[in-house]
């Protein structure tokens, strides 16, 4: 099963790199990582989901947590007896958006690892960890 997730993330990565180039602010270049993450939370999320990330937290040492309380692709996902079981079943669907975020950051030259988890549908939280290569 693992292999499929890697492939989904790769597809997302390829999408992210093109989204960044296409929807980057036309007249100025983003250089500061926080600016780039904000670009993801506002512009990229707007293009993809017609809404923005609900809240962004960071420890200013390379970790960013993006929380989307109504993740669009989860909006119709539902199981029986509450969201916990469904949340587990939604796991495969988070790899593509993780890849997209990593792709966007990569095209600005920021190397990252992106993972996500969902405590209860339709909420979804993405965690970006900047990997500063030597």
């Amino acid at each position, binding site marked *: 099963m693992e292999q499929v997730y890697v492939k989904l993330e790769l597809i997302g990565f*390829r999408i992210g*790199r*093109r989204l*960044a*180039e*296409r929807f*980057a*602010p*036309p*007249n*100025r*270049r*983003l*250089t500061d990582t926080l600016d780039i993450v904000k670009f993801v939370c506002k512009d990229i999320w707007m293009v993809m989901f017609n809404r923005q990330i609900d809240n962004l937290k960071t420890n200013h040492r390379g970790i960013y947590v993006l929380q989307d309380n109504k993740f669009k692709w989860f909006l119709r996902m539902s199981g029986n007896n509450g969201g916990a079981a469904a949340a587990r079943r939604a796991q495969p669907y988070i790899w593509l958006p993780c890849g997209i975020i990593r792709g966007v950051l990569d*095209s*600005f*030259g920021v190397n990252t690892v992106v993972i996500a988890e969902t405590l209860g549908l339709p909420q979804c939280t993405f965690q970006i960890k900047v990997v500063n290569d030597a």
Partner: protein
Amino acid sequence: MSSTYYFAIVGTNDSPLYETELGVQRDESKYLNQFIVHAALDLVDDAQFMSTACYLKTVDRYNDWNVSAYVTPSNIRLMLLHEAKADDAIRLFFTDCHELYLKTLLNPFYEPNTPIQSQAFDVKVNTLAKKYLF
């Protein structure tokens, strides 16, 4: 408006993605032009820190050549060797070329940051040159 230009697109790792001679052929060999562009890249990096704008105008001079540069959000560099000063025309030329580069991204089989082989791209660059530079 003198009628000789050399236009090149340089990838993030300084590898050439595309190059072309525009207008009347000058006697110098193509390698000299490549050398001039390559040498100017360091100056482009310096210019990038000074401003977050994409269009960096003229960053270098070599004999009677001016070297102008334009950096896209994902650090792809458009370089133009030209004799006469024509900031506005060159800016328009660069922005349209950037738009053209975005179009190639729409082709899923084109990997960003790799040499652009499509003839259609070559034809369109020449039409843009005729429109703005001649």
